[in-house]
């Protein structure tokens, strides 16, 4: 019991994932700054932002649903926290995994967008509602290719247990080094971009159009929790990619792989313009959908 609480709160749960996630947002901001030929923020910047937001006043707008508005950020945080704990424990102790844990993780990863939708819709602000509806549309867009990309890994290894997927990769080499694995990795990377709402897909919070979208009315602690959830997601999604497609997190090489994926995400973020919501949906359903189906067929054939 105490071990489970330590797992959830300290390592590899809230404190560990949150600390590394905030550090990753610093990497994101620093790389962005270097691309724009400037110095960028100091290393403690995300922590200073987080502490400042925690200690500021929290407003609930007049007429907003108080319970939904204040509980929504924690819903997303709980989802990411459980996912990070499960993924890390299963990477280092594959025997802890159970049948269908990959499905549990997929559903828990749907909680952060759900929390954003609930929070944005309960804020009673027209721009927040627009942001929430865009988040919903985007969510329906990227979930199809994401599920097919995960299904490719499941078909190639023939198992619904993350522990067995990792062991299979240890025996026969990572899934990424095959045709269907490359397609799954590519699709997963682009979906990661959308799940983090980074630039080509930052449609829900488009700064220049709807200010901050669903986060518009949030301040203080609630906003800090949303920022923390985003930072933790930035850590958890690349870990999930490495776990199911690139050989697991247990070897020291996985840190290099992890940094490669993070820098790739930041580079995509910095070299692309924002899409419209209809363009994004078309891209996910037609472009990535067909690509991931080709990958699925290749996986079924055995390539």
């Amino acid at each position, binding site marked *: 019991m105490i071990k489970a609480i330590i797992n959830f709160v300290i390592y590899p749960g809230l404190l560990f994932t949150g600390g590394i996630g905030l550090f990753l947002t610093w990497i994101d*901001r620093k790389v962005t*700054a270097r691309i*724009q*030929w*400037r*110095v*960028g*923020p*100091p290393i*403690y*910047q995300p922590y*200073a*932002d987080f*502490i*400042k*937001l*925690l*200690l*500021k*006043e*929290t*407003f609930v707008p007049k007429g907003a649903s108080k319970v939904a508005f204040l509980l929504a950020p924690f819903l997303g945080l709980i989802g990411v926290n459980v996912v990070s704990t499960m993924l890390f424990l299963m990477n280092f102790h594959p025997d802890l995994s159970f049948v269908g844990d990959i499905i549990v993780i997929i559903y828990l990863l749907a909680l952060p967008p759900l929390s954003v939708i609930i929070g944005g819709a309960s804020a009673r602000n027209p721009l927040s509602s627009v942001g929430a509806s865009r988040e919903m549309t985007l969510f329906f867009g990227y979930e199809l290719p994401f599920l097919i990309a995960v299904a490719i890994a499941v078909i190639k290894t023939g198992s619904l247990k993350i522990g067995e997927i990792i062991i299979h990769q240890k025996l026969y080499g990572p899934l990424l080094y095959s045709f269907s694995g490359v397609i799954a990795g590519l699709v997963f990377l682009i979906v990661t971009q959308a799940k983090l709402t980074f630039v080509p897909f930052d449609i829900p919070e488009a*700064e220049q159009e709807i*200010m*901050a979208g669903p*986060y*518009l*009315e*949030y*301040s*203080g602690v609630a*906003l800090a929790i949303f920022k923390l959830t985003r930072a933790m997601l930035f850590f958890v999604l690349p870990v999930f990619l490495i776990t199911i497609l690139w050989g697991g997190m247990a070897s020291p090489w996985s840190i290099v792989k992890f940094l490669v994926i993070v820098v790739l995400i930041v580079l995509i973020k910095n070299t692309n313009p924002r899409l419209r919501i209809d363009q994004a949906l078309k891209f996910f359903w037609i472009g990535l959908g067909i690509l991931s189906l080709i990958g699925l067929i290749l996986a079924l054939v055995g390539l």
Partner: protein
Amino acid sequence: MGIKLWGLKKSPWVFHVAAAPCNNCDIEILDALTPRFDVERFGILLVGSPRHADALLVTGILNRKNLPRVLRVYEQTPKPCLVIAVGTCACHPNIFSVSYNVTGPYDKHLPVHVYIPGCPPKPETIIAGVVKALKNL
């Protein structure tokens, strides 16, 4: 120095309140936020909502029409928050002070923390003023 003050000093997010300016100061503020001057070194970010802001950059002359709006934006900002008056107009109404419509300078209605004079002030001046204000918190 408390951790609250440290956080506020190291990451002041600014919201730009343009209250009837001639746009000169606003152009200079936008210039100060470009990569050339790189205010992210000090943790300064431009945010789109007063709910996220720690500092309000106010420009222009306060008049009967926009005074209630500016006060409302100030009320919507979570405290503690700084008010930074950018430009000569924001520091004092000057040649407009005898107008029937002008309701007086900002410090008559809001607690102003730093005045940055100039018509318009250069980006370097704005950054120096903000950094000085953060130092003296």
